[in-house]
């Protein structure tokens, strides 16, 4: 199992944080463009899912999977969006993202008075804790390429 990369967006589509671990293929465009594309796609999928669902969609869009990787999506009620790309065998990533939100994001970003809401995170402490949390998770377990 492996984790490829992580995007965090706010409700206005600003990329607040990006980190990558085992990303083998780069997109070939700048990070800003990539984030815009990613956010646009998520936004479209979300409204597509809500529109096309034959029953009440409740939680809405959760993840999608290709034969190479899986993209997991968590949206909080406050509009934060966590996007984690993993390999296809990863399980219960939603709980993992919820934990990440509670233990890393809230602790080291929201409770940091120097962070201005709605701006990208630059705190080294957060970067370090975030990296540590991801690496220690059972989902990470080094690369399988």
């Amino acid at each position, binding site marked *: 199992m492996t984790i490829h990369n992580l995007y965090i967006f706010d409700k206005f589509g600003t990329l607040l944080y990006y980190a990558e671990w085992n990303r083998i293929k780069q997109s070939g465009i700048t990070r800003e463009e990539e984030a815009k594309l990613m956010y646009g796609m998520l936004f479209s999928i979300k409204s597509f899912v809500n529109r096309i669902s034959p029953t009440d969609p409740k*939680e809405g869009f959760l993840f999608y999977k290709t034969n190479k990787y899986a993209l997991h999506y968590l949206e909080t009620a406050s509009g934060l969006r966590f996007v984690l790309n993993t390999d296809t065998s990863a399980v219960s990533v939603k709980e993992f993202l919820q934990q990440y939100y509670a233990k890393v994001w809230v602790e080291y970003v929201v409770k940091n008075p120097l962070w201005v809401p709605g701006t990208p995170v630059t705190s080294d402490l957060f970067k370090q804790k975030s990296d540590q949390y991801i690496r220690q998770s059972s989902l990470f377990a080094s690369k399988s390429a």
Partner: protein
Amino acid sequence: MSRQTSRLDSKKVNSELLTLTYGALVTQIIRDFENIDDVNKQLERIGYNMGIRLIEDFLSRTASTRCLDMRETADKIQQAFRMYLNVQPTISNWAASADEFSLIFDTNPLTEFVELPADMSTLRFSGVLCGCIRGALEMVQLEVHCWFAQDQLKGDGTTEIRVKFIRRLEDAIPAGED
């Protein structure tokens, strides 16, 4: 700069410390502004700024989803007061349209050792609470109006915060390619 995650769940503080710290803050603001209207505004603003951060902590602990109606919102606010101030406000006085309700407090931890001097009768001492509710709800796309209907500091029997739903804010759509 090393914070331990082990003490994360049980950060309990004596409420007297909070009461006195808050009292010191209000005193300082009064000294800085003199005009009570400005003081009220500042307290509201501080509360708002607290609310927009506090909501993230609340959501991460409770894994709440967005509210579908104001009754659910009222329950969540009640739960938040229990969580952060260890008081249990009563929810009552629903407007017929179900978009307005009151939170009734028998005790208010912020005003435990407080008496208002006669010349400050317009001061909303616990104004941060209103700002906090407003800020937190704005982050979950609810615009509300929030004010004190009764205040024990002003001789009323209970403290009553009134919350009125204004409108649901729309989710932002991504900026187009330009």
